[in-house]
């Protein structure tokens, strides 16, 4: 094989830019599949314990604010929308639009994390954090109640950690977009950064109804 001059869009080990892009996309999806399995274990633990302690889980779930949860879900969907528009801007070579939409994505992500921090703070105030000071009104089953909140903090916490990493990725993309690194023939980092961002959105799409909405009709 002839060696060719290396560029960002065509590294030495690839035959064509299209092949390189395909491999990058596939690699990102394989990583996301490992993430599906990672979060899948937590969803399984949630399903098993929710079945076992349905009443306590219902009581504990209803202490969350469904309206705040719904609004935050909408904020995250807005961030996914601006992200997909950022990818589109990169695709058509509009640097200005790419920068604007990346900034908007970072802002929506920041709002989501801010609201999440407020919700966590409320839980600390209400003594709903598992530990020696834990207390949930209206039940004698404090153990299973702590189990719900352990799952709540683990799942929303790991989701928030993914969001923070996503914010870092967006800042990186923004910096490189500013430095004119992306062109219509090479914007793979924006593309696969978008895949990651949307995946984190999908995780929340399942967390929201399962954590906030499971027992609203009961009280």
């Amino acid at each position: 094989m002839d060696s060719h001059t290396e560029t960002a869009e065509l590294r030495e080990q690839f035959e064509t830019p299209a092949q390189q892009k395909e491999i990058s996309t596939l690699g990102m999806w394989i990583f996301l599949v490992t993430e599906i399995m990672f979060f899948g274990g937590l969803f399984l633990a949630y399903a098993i314990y929710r079945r076992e302690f349905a009443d306590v889980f219902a009581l504990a779930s209803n202490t969350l604010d469904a309206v705040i949860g719904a609004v935050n879900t909408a904020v995250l969907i807005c961030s996914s929308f601006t992200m997909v528009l950022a990818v589109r801007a990169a695709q058509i070579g509009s640097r200005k639009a790419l920068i604007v939409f990346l900034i908007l994505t970072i802002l929506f992500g920041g709002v989501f994390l801010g609201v999440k921090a407020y919700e966590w703070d409320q839980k600390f105030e209400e003594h709903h954090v598992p530990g020696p000071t834990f207390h949930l009104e209206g039940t004698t089953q404090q153990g299973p109640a702590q189990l719900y909140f352990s799952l709540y903090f683990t799942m929303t916490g790991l989701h928030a950690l993914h969001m923070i990493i996503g914010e870092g990725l967006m800042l990186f993309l923004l910096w490189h977009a500013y430095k004119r690194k992306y062109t219509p023939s090479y914007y793979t980092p924006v593309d696969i950064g978008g895949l990651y961002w949307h995946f984190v959105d999908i995780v929340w799409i399942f967390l929201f109804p399962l954590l906030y909405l499971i027992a609203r009709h009961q009280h």
Partner: protein
Amino acid sequence: MHEQAASIKSYTLVFLSLLILTAATTVVAFIDLGPLNVVMALFIAVVKMMLVALFFMHLRYSTVLTKVVVGGGMLWLGILLLLSLSDFVTRGWLPVPGK
């Protein structure tokens, strides 16, 4: 790989559908449907996931190899959930001798 940029209009439609579904899942949760509440919540979540994956993540235009990888991931997730739950749900259905 599908390189042609999709229209802003189609992305906007998906975006609005996602917002409407979020409102729908919240409202439906407050109505007592018995065991159907969980079914509705999961059904709407799966529809939202499909919208994000197919349109925002461009899975619709991805190569067959990528689709197979994603399908394989979902299959293993299904095995994890279904086989584990079939164990927990059926415990106690039959008496265990000597217990």
